[in-house]
């Protein structure tokens, strides 16, 4: 769930940024999306990308933990019933 939200928000922001860029630099949205990926990423972006990956790992771990807890909770409920 959290991972999903992460991706969803990530792509929404991507589109928003591309939209603004395309409006400022007068090119189409598709170009904007593409340029973000290839042109604007600077060399030190590596740090941020690793930050993103850490965030992603965090999401996945939390999701797994939540899933396990839910399972356990369900089992406990099942036992009670």
């Amino acid at each position, binding site marked *: *769930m*959290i991972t999903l*939200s*992460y991706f*969803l*928000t*990530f792509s*929404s*922001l991507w589109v*928003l*940024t591309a939209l*603004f*860029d395309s*409006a*400022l630099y007068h090119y189409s949205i598709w170009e904007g999306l593409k340029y*973000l990926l290839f042109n*604007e*990423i*600077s060399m*030190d*972006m590596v*740090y*941020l*990308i690793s*930050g*993103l990956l*850490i*965030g*992603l790992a*965090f*999401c996945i771990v*939390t999701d797994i933990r*939540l899933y396990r807890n839910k399972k356990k909770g369900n089992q406990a409920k099942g036992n009670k019933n």
Partner: protein
Amino acid sequence: MLKENISLTQLEALLLNFLLGSAIVIGIGTDAKNDAWIAILIATLIGGGTILFYWFLMNRLPGKTLYELLEFCFGRKFAILLSHGYIVYFLYNSGRVIRDFGELMASALMPNTPIEIISLTICFVIGYILYLGLEVLARTSEIFTPYLFGFIFLLTIFLLVSGQIEMTRLLPVLGEGFKPILKSLFPGLLTFPFGELIVFTVIFLNVTDTKKGQKASLIGVGVASFLLIFSSILMIVTLGVDGILRSNFPLLSTAREVAIGNFIERIDAIVVFIMMLGILVKGSVFLYGALKGLEYIYKKPFRYFSIPFAMLVAFYSVLISVNFADHLQEGLKLVPYFLHLPFQFGIPAVMLVILLWKQRKGKKNKTGWNYGSNQKAKKNPGT
């Protein structure tokens, strides 16, 4: 943990730091030239009205956040869509705030440190603070607020002593009439920083005393505006209008003018760190707004989202604009019209209309309109 509570003082501290945040970094109302302070003064009145409007809106359904209000007005499905919009909006704003600070650091203090590192580290701190919760954020801002006052006070004294202040720079007052003031008011000052208070609609319900909350937030806005006006005047009388217009960071340039004897000079680096506090609070509050939205949509405690989304903010703080001019122009030309106005005033206004209509209808049929009020128990069970 049960509902997080923030006291009135904390609300004021949050508002103060929030409003000063990036506004004090890049300077506001500069379109009005040496009447910037008048513009801010007028904007303050509007800002006070704005926050009262938000309070009024939130008081229709007490104990609910913006997102639950959206649900009440538009239904869950449409509310999720709008909430997503708000989340993106808040995250984007948070990124902008962080970027402001990153540019400041990269331009003024550490030109060889990659801005990415600065963004990443500060976002990590923000993520950690929010992981600890809103209370911690409020308390942290409370702790640091006195330093803000102390700093501006000291800066004034230093500038006075070093003889950099020329009051005549304020003249002529209203030389060009009200036109430039209006120009700087709309949409500039209206949306930034005052309209951005929309994010506080997710915080209002955490205030211990909602009745006094309105008054406290008015005080907060008032004090913040006072400081903004004060610093604006300070900048004008120290740098002159041209100096401000040519500065990327007027307050920093102002602080560079300080030189007393051979000891107190070069305090500009300290300015940066004082600004850091405002940035931190503003960035965190925006991120918190987004996190609450995520909590609403996905029904998971917002803490789980804090670290990943802080990283997201760090990423986008750098990606949103290629260079500083891009950053500024986006902020001047695009963001106010396409993001600020609809999200700060458009949607809330529509919501208010629907709310009033629904409530009148509700009162007529006496059927409970407060459905969904039993959704409060789903807070973080672990902590």
